[in-house]
């Protein structure tokens, strides 16, 4: 018995320590990026300044001069926010109808919507360039908003559907008895009850829009270029600009990581389409 007790005491120390080491290792590249962002470009590549250096904010204050950061950031914010809102605008009524008035075809429609997500983007790259150029929308924010909305629409409908499904039908029926219109049902009953679900769907869609790196790179040049495009354009600084590149990278991902911390639970549901609970 004594051995068992000793073992468990030892493992009570070993496992948590191991867990902490693993977590710190995983976080290390992000930590390193943040740390480098406070070094000058010259200090960033010198071994003697690995951890001990004079921190500077110049990489952040010069971000506009060095990279025109805010132009790209503004595009990212505008396109991601608009795409999130538009996605919800289309997805909420759709998921509402599917959850509260399911027909025999609902399951098939949901599966079909999900299958559009499986379409490899590269397969339709040229048609997209061709169509958008002939319609005159290539490299516009409008186009990026539409594309981001379309690629995230299935996830949004799916997530909202799983939230709405859990709301008791009786409540909606009681609303109908009281003579509420469909719009009234949505406004008075659905939105207040499913507020948390809608908010977390919005958060997740926003994160996906922000991080999207295929269409935002291939369908923009200058006008609608987002942060993904900015970073991709500075892919090989040859060690000259590690400090400033770290600063612009930190600024591009920092807010999203923090938002991500709040969406952990929803992430599981959103990305597995409710298949893991």
């Amino acid at each position, binding site marked *: 018995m004594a051995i068992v007790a000793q073992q468990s005491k030892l493992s009570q120390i070993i496992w948590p320590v191991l*867990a902490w080491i*693993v*977590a710190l290792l*995983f976080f290390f*590249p992000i930590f390193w*990026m943040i740390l480098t962002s406070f070094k000058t470009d010259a200090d960033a590549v010198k*071994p003697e300044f690995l951890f001990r250096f004079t921190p500077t904010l110049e990489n952040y204050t010069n971000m506009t001069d060095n990279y025109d950061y805010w132009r790209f950031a503004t595009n990212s914010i505008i396109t991601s926010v608009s795409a999130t809102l538009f996605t919800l605008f*289309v997805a909420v*009524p*759709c998921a509402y*109808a*599917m959850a509260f*008035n*399911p*027909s025999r075809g609902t*399951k098939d*429609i*949901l*599966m079909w*919507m*999900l*299958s*559009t997500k*499986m*379409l*490899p983007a*590269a*397969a*339709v*790259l*040229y*048609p997209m360039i*061709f169509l958008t150029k002939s319609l005159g929308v290539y490299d516009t924010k409008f186009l990026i908003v539409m594309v981001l909305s379309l690629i995230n*629409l299935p996830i949004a409908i799916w997530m909202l559907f799983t939230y709405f499904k859990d709301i008791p039908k009786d409540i909606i029926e009681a609303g109908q008895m009281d003579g509420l219109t*469909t719009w009234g049902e949505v406004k008075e009953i659905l939105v207040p009850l499913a507020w948390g679900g809608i908010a977390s769907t919005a958060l997740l869609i926003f994160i996906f829009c922000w991080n999207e*790196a*295929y269409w935002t*790179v*291939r369908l923009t040049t200058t006008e609608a270029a987002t*942060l*993904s495009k900015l*970073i*991709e354009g500075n*892919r090989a600084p040859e*060690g000259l600009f590690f400090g400033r590149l*770290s600063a612009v990278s930190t600024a*591009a*991902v920092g807010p*999203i990581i923090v938002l*991500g*911390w709040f969406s*952990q*639970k929803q992430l*599981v549901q959103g*990305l*597995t389409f*409710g*298949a*893991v*609970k």
Partner: protein
Amino acid sequence: MANRTIPRLLQTPAVILLLFWMLIPLGMTLFFSFIRYVLNNLRNPHWTTPSIENWRGFGNYQFVWGQDSFWLAMKNSLVIVTSILFLTVILGVVIAVLINRSFPGRGIVRVLLISPFFVMPAVNAVLWINMILDPVLGLQGLAVSGINDLSAGLKDAPLIGWFFSLWPELEPISFRATQTSSIAVIMMVVWQWTPFAILIFMTSLQSEDQQQKEAAVLDGASTWSQFRFLTLPHLGRPIAIVVMIQAIFHLSLYAEIEIVSRGNGNKNLPYYIGELVNNNIGAASAAGIFAVILANIVAIFLLRMVGKTLME
């Protein structure tokens, strides 16, 4: 009857939008894949406009099928995807089990572990290939030269000097080179997606039957056999789902390939298509259809698994 009309009406915008998104570009790709269509051709200028007159039948498919670079891209796609899947699932299971207990600071450990998943792919690739993996100025370069300096300094030390004089000079690895650029991509994607696997497995572990586990402990089952016969079977379904979702995402990896080496040594199917799009649209479209077929093989299994839980 009005009861049926309104729900239909509410679904219509979403259905129409996705229908357009699905049918029009894919239909065009399918059409282009059967015609001769190039962007520049001085001898045959009529090939530069998409028209049914330039019908080529399965010629584009045969052309792509016969190209070495297509098969290389196919091979790279599969090597990259399967390596990532293998590593993320193993790391994911081990780490999920590791932190599936209460210990001080568990909340912070979770937050630290999930963070890489939210880094945008472009930043992930730029950060890894430059600040971390660069053979001279990155952490790798600094570490290698640091170790070399250290062992060179210790060569003259008494007693232990002979040991360090046998020590070989370490060579830093260039991860933009043909032989290694796939490894760089695999590393950075594994770093980004292991958190996803951990998160899914952890969620699933929380619903594991605790009474069963306690019974096993009372019966004297070892930690290993508990893991092998209770935890692992419980994780079977989440593992399958993680594998399929990741397969679909990673079959279309692009930004990482572009940033690490612009396709040198790690050119996958999307990158190969992206290169063909610069001129040979017919061939690019045929390759695109191959990519659709490949993704569909994975997707069918995924949809079947997800479909089962749909109406519960």
